[in-house]
C-alpha cells in the first residue's frame, strides 16, 4: 500500500479544502491521498463491488473538485462532508440499480458484522486512524446484532425503517427501537473519544 493510507484520514485540515477551492492541484492530490481509502471502503461496503466503487469514487472526486466551494467548515469536518457525499451518491446508485431490478447481494448477506470485526491494525494506517477505527469498530461490534443490522440496513443500504421492517419481517416499532437504541449506544460509546477531541 502506498502513500494514501499513511495520511490521517480523520485529521484532514479544512484549509486543505480551502486550497482546493482556489484550484490548487497539489492540495487536491493530498485530499485524495487522505481520503480515498476511507471513501473507497465505504463505496465498496454500500455497492459490494470494487469496479462500481471505483466508478463512484471517480464521480465523487470530480464532484468534490467542482463543488468544493460548497463545503462549509461550520457544518462539519471535511471527512464528514466527504463521507456524506460518497454515501449519498452510492445509495443513489443502489436505488437506481434497484429500479432496474438488480439487487445487491454481496454486501449485506456476506455478513456485516465480519467487516467491523476486523479490528486488527493495518500496517499502513496512521496511528490516529488506527485508533479511531478500533474505537468505532468496537462501539459497533458492541451492539446487539439486531441493532447493528438495523442501523447498517438504514445507513449502508438507504432503507427506511418501514423497508427494514419488511426486509427483516419485524414489527415497525421493533425496528425503530433497535435503531434508536443502537444509535444511542454508539453515541455513548464514542462520547469519550468525542470529549478527547479525537473526533472532529
Amino acid at each position, binding site marked *: 500500500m502506498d502513500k494514501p493510507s499513511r495520511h490521517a484520514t480523520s485529521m484532514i485540515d479544512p484549509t486543505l479544502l480551502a486550497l482546493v477551492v482556489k484550484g490548487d492541484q497539489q492540495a487536491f492530490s493530498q485530499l485524495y491521498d487522505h481520503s480515498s481509502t*476511507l471513501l*473507497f471502503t465505504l463505496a465498496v*461496503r454500500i455497492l459490494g463491488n470494487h469496479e462500481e466503487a*471505483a466508478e463512484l469514487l471517480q464521480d465523487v472526486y470530480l464532484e468534490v473538485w467542482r463543488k468544493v*466551494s*460548497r463545503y462549509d467548515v461550520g457544518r462539519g469536518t471535511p471527512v464528514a462532508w466527504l463521507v456524506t457525499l460518497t454515501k449519498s451518491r452510492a445509495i*443513489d446508485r443502489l436505488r437506481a440499480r434497484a429500479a432496474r431490478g438488480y439487487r445487491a447481494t454481496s454486501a449485506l448477506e456476506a455478513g456485516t458484522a465480519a*467487516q467491523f470485526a476486523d479490528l486488527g491494525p493495518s500496517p499502513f494506517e496512521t496511528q490516529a486512524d488506527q485508533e479511531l477505527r478500533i474505537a468505532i469498530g468496537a462501539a*459497533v461490534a458492541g451492539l446487539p446484532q439486531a441493532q447493528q443490522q438495523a442501523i447498517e440496513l438504514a445507513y449502508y443500504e438507504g432503507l427506511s*425503517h418501514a423497508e427494514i421492517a419488511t426486509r427483516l419481517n419485524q414489527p415497525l416499532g421493533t425496528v425503530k427501537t433497535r435503531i434508536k437504541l443502537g444509535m444511542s449506544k454508539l453515541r455513548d460509546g464514542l462520547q469519550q473519544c468525542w470529549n478527547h477531541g479525537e473526533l472532529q
Partner: protein
Amino acid sequence: MTHEEIEESVPLYAAGALDRTERQTLEAHLLSGCASCHSALKDYQSVAALLPLGLGPTSPPRALKATIMAGRNPAPIPAEAAPNEPARPSLEPGEWMNHLFPPVAPARSWSLPWAVGLATLLIVAVGGYLAWHFATQRSVDTSNIQRLEASLQDKSSKLADVHREVGNQAKALAELRNEMQQRMNEAAEAKEQLAQREAELEETRVQLSQRGGARTAGTPQDELATLLRIPNVKAVSLTGSDMAKRAAGFLLYDSRTQKVWLYSVNLPECPAGTTYQLWAIHDKPMSIGTFHMDRGETAHLLVMKVPSFTDAKTYAVSLEPSGGRPQPTGPMYLLSRS
C-alpha cells in the same frame, strides 16, 4: 406528531432510516428552532458521519487517482457558477451535518433542510407575490371600474347638457316660428291695410275726378296698374270669335270700387253706325257698356262702374248698332272661357 415522537425520530434521522415525510416533519421542527432536538441531532449525526471509519479499510485501485486527476476540469467551479443539475440526487453533501452547528452564515450547501427552508421561503414568496398580484389586479380592476364609472358619469352629464341644449334650441325654434308667424300675420295685415289704403286712395281719386273732372290721380292706365296690385280683383280673359280670331281681351272687376275694366286688342274697326257692346251673362245678358274702335286703333280700355257684377259666369263683346241695345243682336267678337 408530538415533540416526544419527533425527538425520538432524531437518531433514526441520523441513521438515514426515516421516510421522506418523517424527514420533512423533523426538518421543519428543527427549522422552528428547537434547541434540544438540535443538540441531540448534533450528537447523533457526528456518530453517523464517523461510522465508515470503523470499517476495515480497502484501498482503491492505483490507477484511479491518475484517472481522477486527468478527468478534472482546469479549475473547480464556484458554487454560484456550478451548472444546475437536471436530476438532483436524493441526498446532498452535508445533509447529515446541517444541524451539527446552528448556521451562522447563509448555507452554501444544498442540504435537504435548507432546501425545505428555501422551498418554504419560495412558497411564502410565491404566495406573497400571488396575493400581491391579486391585490394589485383587484386594485387595478377597481381603479378601472371607478374610471369607467367616472367616464360614464361624465358622458351622462354631457348627454344631459346636449339634451338641454337641444331643448333650448327647440324652444328657440318654436319661438322663432311663432315670431315668424306673427310677422307674417303682421305683414298680411299690413298688406291688407295697404290695399285698403290704396282703395281708399282710389276712391278719393274717383271722387275728385267726379267733382272736378281733373285727372289729378292719373290715367286709367295708372289705375289699371294699381288695380293689378290688388289681390282680390276678379280677372277673366276673353278670346276672339270667328269674326275676329286675332282679337283678345282681359277683364277685371274690382268689387270694392264696383268697377269693370276691359282691355281689348286687335278688334276690327267699327263700321259706321255701329259700336261694340260688353255683356255680362248670368241668367240673361246684361249690358255693361259700349265702346268704339276707330280706324288704326288696336287696343282699347273700357272702364265702367257697375253695381252687381260678380254673379256673371260669361262675358262677351258683340257688335251692335250705335247706342247699344238691351239684348245682344249683332255678331259676337269676344267671348270669355267658361
